[in-house]
């Protein structure tokens, strides 16, 4: 039995009471793994999921004598991210060493940036649905800096999969040296009860922006986008900041919202009891929805930062920066406004699309020929449900916007009805091929030949003569029972409207 507590649940205060008595302040730190072909300081490839320790060299293994060389594409991505976040770009900056011992750090220091980040002092506007409608919050960006990722340790044996109680640990250095950009917000104030939603909206908007820049695949479940949430409470907005905690391991948009809300309720309970908050790192537990204490910041290491002497300073020329600025893709806020106007949908409907992270896929589905309402229906309905079940992002489902648009086109031309369309989607998701192939192989086309339908109608009428009489007697609403029987008989492959029309015609009644 492990002696490590996974956290007996702490006392929490009801959320309404928290926001009645406290003002939350947030600080969000997001780590983004860049999608560069090679690592930040060596030429090793960055492919995700390769066999352990196959994408390594003397430099990213930290072997004696090895030296780093800066990846220019990494610097370029950092500048583009900075520009997209409305930051100033440093005219001159250096890397720094962050010194601490850990087995997944090959050199026992991380090459990072300290007091000279490449980008600083920017902002990102995010929209949140409030009681008074959609409200825009401006999130200040303190800095965006470059650093390298660590290796990945897995602990073998023991009860918890954590280092305590493990029999031994394995380290995979494939991830060591992969470029990271750390984006740190300024303290986020004035969000009140919407703090959890603002946190989620910020990460959602940031992810959208990064995806638009094409600098990262921003997959939270694969760790290419990771968020640490700093939360503190104070009695009044005029009070100084309260003591904060930093919650790590928050690996989905939903978790960010939940973790912030949980931390607020936990801290409020401590404060209401007359206690004080310990400045510490806390771990979020997705399954139980709580945070537990990690390492206390009081015993935290002194990182002994100093300028990295193995690298020369980075001094991006203004011409290069302006070139990069000019080539930035459309700003997401501008894009949202443009798309919303084109689709003619309400703020609320637009927010629903954004919250689901579905803007890209819906837009691409529309571009592939589908009606916007139909595209939204699929991605926010059936596909969102499947993605949620599988714990993946919409974009990661094994179905493309073009395939969704094709299914919708088949519905439009009458080949499929809604129920059959769902089955086609299911087939595509199951890897059965293109929508037309699924229709063919599963034999899913709507029965459009009236002959078999009339036969089925006659059979149903014969089986339920009393219902037939009711309809003949003018009780048209009773037709549903017959239509249902026909649909059942044709295994859903009939167009219900057509069945109904044929039935009424057969019985000589009109609506």
């Amino acid at each position: 039995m492990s002696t490590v507590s996974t956290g007996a649940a702490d006392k929490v205060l009801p959320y309404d009471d928290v926001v009645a008595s406290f003002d939350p302040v947030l600080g969000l730190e997001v780590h983004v793994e860049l999608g560069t072909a090679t690592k930040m300081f060596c030429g090793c490839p960055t492919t995700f999921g390769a066999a352990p320790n196959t994408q390594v060299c003397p430099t990213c293994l930290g072997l004696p004598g090895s030296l780093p060389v800066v990846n220019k594409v990494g610097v370029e991505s950092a500048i583009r991210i900075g520009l997209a976040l409305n930051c100033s770009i440093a005219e001159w900056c250096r890397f720094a060493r962050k010194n601490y011992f850990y087995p997944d750090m090959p050199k026992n220091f991380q090459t990072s940036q300290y007091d000279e980040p490449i980008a600083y002092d920017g902002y990102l506007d995010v929209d949140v649905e409030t009681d008074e409608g959609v409200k825009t919050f401006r999130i200040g960006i303190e800095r965006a800096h470059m650093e390298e990722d660590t290796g990945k340790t897995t602990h073998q044996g023991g009860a918890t999969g954590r280092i305590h109680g493990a029999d031994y640990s394995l380290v995979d250095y494939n991830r060591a040296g992969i470029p990271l950009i750390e984006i740190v917000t300024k303290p986020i104030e004035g969000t009140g009860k919407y703090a959890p939603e603002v946190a989620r909206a910020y990460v959602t908007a940031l992810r959208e922006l990064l995806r638009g820049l094409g600098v990262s695949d921003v997959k939270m479940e694969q760790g290419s986008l990771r968020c640490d949430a700093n939360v503190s409470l104070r009695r009044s907005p005029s009070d100084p900041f309260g003591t904060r905690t930093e919650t790590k391991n928050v690996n989905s948009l939903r978790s960010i919202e939940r973790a912030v809300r949980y931390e607020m309720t936990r801290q409020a309970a401590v404060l209401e009891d007359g206690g004080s908050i310990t400045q510490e790192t806390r771990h979020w537990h997705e399954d139980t929805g709580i945070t537990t204490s990690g390492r206390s910041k009081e015993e935290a290491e002194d990182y002994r930062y100093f300028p990295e002497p193995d690298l020369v300073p980075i001094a991006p020329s203004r011409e290069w920066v302006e070139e990069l600025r000019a080539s930035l893709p459309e700003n997401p806020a501008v894009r949202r406004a443009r798309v919303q106007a084109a689709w003619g949908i309400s703020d609320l409907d637009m927010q629903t699309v954004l919250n689901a992270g579905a803007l890209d896929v819906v837009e691409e589905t529309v571009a592939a020929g589908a009606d916007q309402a139909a595209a939204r229906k699929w991605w926010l309905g059936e596909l969102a449900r499947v993605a949620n079940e599988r714990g993946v992002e919409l974009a990661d489902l094994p179905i493309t916007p073009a395939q969704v648009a094709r299914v919708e086109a088949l519905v439009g031309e009458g080949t499929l009805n809604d129920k059959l369309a769902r089955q086609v989607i299911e087939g595509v998701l199951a890897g059965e091929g293109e929508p037309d192939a699924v229709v063919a192989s599963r034999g899913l086309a709507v029965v459009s030949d009236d002959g078999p339908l009339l036969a089925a109608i006659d059979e149903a009428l014969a089986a339920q003569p009393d219902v037939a009489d009711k309809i003949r007697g003018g009780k048209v609403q009773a037709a549903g029972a017959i239509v249902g029987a026909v649909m059942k008989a044709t295994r859903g492959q009939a167009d219900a409207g057509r069945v109904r029309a044929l039935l009424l015609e057969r019985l000589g009644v009109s609506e």
Partner: protein
Amino acid sequence: MTSAVTGSTDLTRLTAAETASAVAAGEVSAAEVATAHLDRIAAVDDRVHAFLHIDAEGALAAAAAVDAARSAGEQLSPLAGVPLALKDVLTQKGIPTTCGSRILEGWRPPYDATVTARLKDAGVVILGKTNMDEFAMGSSTEHSAFGATHNPWDLDRIPGGSGGGSAAAIAAFEAPLAIGTDTGGSIRQPAAVTGTVGVKPTYGAVSRYGLVALASSLDQAGPCARTVLDAALLHSVIAGHDPLDSTSLDQPVPDVVGAARRADVKGLRIGVVKELGGEGYQAGVRQRFDEAVALLTDLGAEVVEVSAPHFPYALAAYYLILPSECSSNLAKFDGIRFGLRVGEGDGDPSVEQVMARTRAAGFGAEATRRIMLGTYALSAGYYDAYYGSAQKVRTLIQRDFAAAFEQADVLISPTAPTTAFKLGEKLDDPLAMYLNDVATIPANLAGIPGMSLPIGLAPEDGLPVGLQIMAPAMADDRLYNAGAALEGALLDRWGRPILEEAPAL
């Protein structure tokens, strides 16, 4: 085959330049040259202990390759077939690389340092790896975990450090060439106390890729030889831009060989640095230095005195910057991925305990001292006072040099305050040991090149004295020009090279 320089027919007494010509001309095979040196090592190294590892098989294979290339009529590079001793701080693929430390015992690097690769490409025959103070921390080679190296002039004395093994190997005729590394004087001070020539090139002139770092902003590999021309030939093989080292200079290598052949100081402005001499320098060192200054004047140089007012702070600044960088550079030695691992089976230790046990067992006293000094100097609350202030001093020293080079083309001083001291004499007094590098450290802090060459024996102890020449960054050729001129004049005066005065081993 008779040496024009030494008059000897012994293959180990040839200069590198003579050996290369003889091999190229087919007068002697590279294999014979390698064998002669391996025999010499076998005969004397049990007393000198210059080598930590001898790669006879690799050396003979490299020599055979040179001989085969010559037979095939291929053009040989200028040092093809010349044996060399490689300081054990540079990686050589598959060959043990210890840095003089227990913590790396048994480690065989999977890659060649850029310097090593360039030597191999040039047909240089690498005989083995030389002894050094642990991770290049020291001025006597007594801090090697594998025992001290002995000075061939007097086996009871130190050969200097940290590159005592490389200097002693050359002085003992175990190799005509060696590679050293110089962080605060580790090439120049051993050269001075062994009567050999050593050059620390401009920072960034020679790639540091594969040089196990002591202090990244100070470390620089360079040539060790018995003549200025040999050092120049080796310099031109190892120098040049390397994309694997971000601090490597992307500029043409100065014509150091041409400068060594020119050897003309007429009209050259030579500055004697007031702060590097006088009190604290041994009488015989001062005497030989003054004589050399007079000789340079006779040769037509214009000698002036220059002042570098911040040099008295150089040692203090150096002993903050070096330990700071070294505390971080040496963090990777933790027993996790390579080298020694200690205490794994003792109880049920945590990974932190294994790291701590490994480091405690693997590092010697001097390494531990400097790691602790550096860790302290970089700590929150002390950084500005220590590391920050030291960097400011470094800037002031760079300005002192800039001002001095307005008045002079090269600067000179004694290389070290004393001749070789007795083994054990300063081992318990770190500060006394650190003072050996008082004259060499400023060049490292400023990143400029420096050379040490022998200028005679101190009358009081009969041991070699070195003179240091310093030049502006990327003007390494000036060292070779001035050094070769002085060397030639001294040889004329002495009649034979200084190493001929050393007792037979």
